[in-house]
């Protein structure tokens, strides 16, 4: 059986989670590899959550928020963007491939884009193969 990656996704309530709901109400099909966690704003998403997802065995982590300028809380998504850039640099230092962590903007009307994003990321991460993070962090050598 081919490798099925697990992708943990953090979505803001107002845009991205609603967009994912719209994919549902529009019955748009996409890969079942994604597991969604809802936060009110992408500004709530902090590096600890992303790191935790990796250490628990996620093969990829996807962060979604409102498009720049459209944040329900005005500017939480910019805070998220700043953290994402620093976090990317950090995880790469630890040897985690950059494509395992992705930040995308999904609006409440972008159900289709959300579905396409999940399919795309699933394939990217499938191509990278299973993440070694959990095994390495729990096995002392």
């Amino acid at each position: 059986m081919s490798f099925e990656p697990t992708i943990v996704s953090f979505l803001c309530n107002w845009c991205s989670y609603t967009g994912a709901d719209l994919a549902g109400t529009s019955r748009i099909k996409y890969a079942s590899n994604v597991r969604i966690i809802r936060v009110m704003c992408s500004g709530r998403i902090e590096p600890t959550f992303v790191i935790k997802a990796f250490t628990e065995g996620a093969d990829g982590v996807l962060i979604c928020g409102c498009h720049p300028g459209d944040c329900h809380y005005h500017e939480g998504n910019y805070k998220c963007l700043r953290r994402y850039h620093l976090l990317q640099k950090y995880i790469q230092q630890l040897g985690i491939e950059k494509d395992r962590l992705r930040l995308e903007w999904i609006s409440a009307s972008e159900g289709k884009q959300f579905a396409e994003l999940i399919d795309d990321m699933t394939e990217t991460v499938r191509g990278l193969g299973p993440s070694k993070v959990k095994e390495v962090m729990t096995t002392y050598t």
Partner: protein
Amino acid sequence: MAKEEKPKIKLAVYWGAACGGCCVSVLDVHEKLFDVVAAADLVFWPIALDIKYKDVEAMPDGHIDVTLFNGAVRNSENEHLAKLLRQKTKVLVAYGSCAHMGGIPGLANFTTKDELFKRIYDETESTVNPDKIRPQPEHEVPEGKLKLPEFYNDVRTLDQVVDVDYYLPGCPPQTERLVEVFMAIVSGAELPPKGSVVGALDKAQCDECKRKKSDNKLIKKFYRPWEIQDDGETCFLEQGVICMGPATRGGCGVRCIEGNAPCRGCYGPPPDVPDPGAKMMSAIATMIDADDEEEIAKIVAQIDDPAGTFYRFSLPGSMLRRKLT
């Protein structure tokens, strides 16, 4: 009537992968040493006393009241002693940053044993080793078998090897804090719950820091400390210099900051923080004063080594405790 003598407690101090600074911090009790020896018998302390491992092995379980274990666990000898001392000790204290979170030796988790050995035994400028000889755990010589501890790939914190009762943080811990903790134990006062960090505050450094601080924590450019003329009185972060103070427990007396150097985080994070560097990483990133993605990336690029900066003393004790290889 003769005053009834309180039985002395049995104290051990041991070093794993450490620089020796923690042992020095114990010596730094100066004249308080008399109080210590009045209250405690030192039953094991390799840098100061000639007591052999086999002497410790011969002790009954739980014989030692308190062991201050400093240093990380880097090889089989450290591991053996950690387990041995755990067995022989009632209260095992991870003493100092290395035992607590991995410390400076823990930065070796950015690399591997093989890479380290290659550098040390093949590549350093003063090395001549054409046969690429490596230290072996066992080696036969005419006189018999020589043994060396096995060098591990990972640097571990003490609690990744054995159960730890308390953590006394710092690189090294402030001697005053050690004395306070020690005296509290000796006095028979009720001890904090197992697993507590002792000898440090719950509040972070800023609470004690005397520098002027405001809400103006917006950073357009990060400076290394040598790149900027510190005005000596403004919050380092407000000058664009990364200071781990807000994410680091107080208790050290903000000595680095008093010495005009930003805090580097040796006292570890405040209570209930799941990862020692991630909160500060999040806070620092939030302070970046840009919304444009390109500009953000440019400013982030000024932080040369985020992992080494935010986990300088805590890499082995963090969630991503080593580099993937």
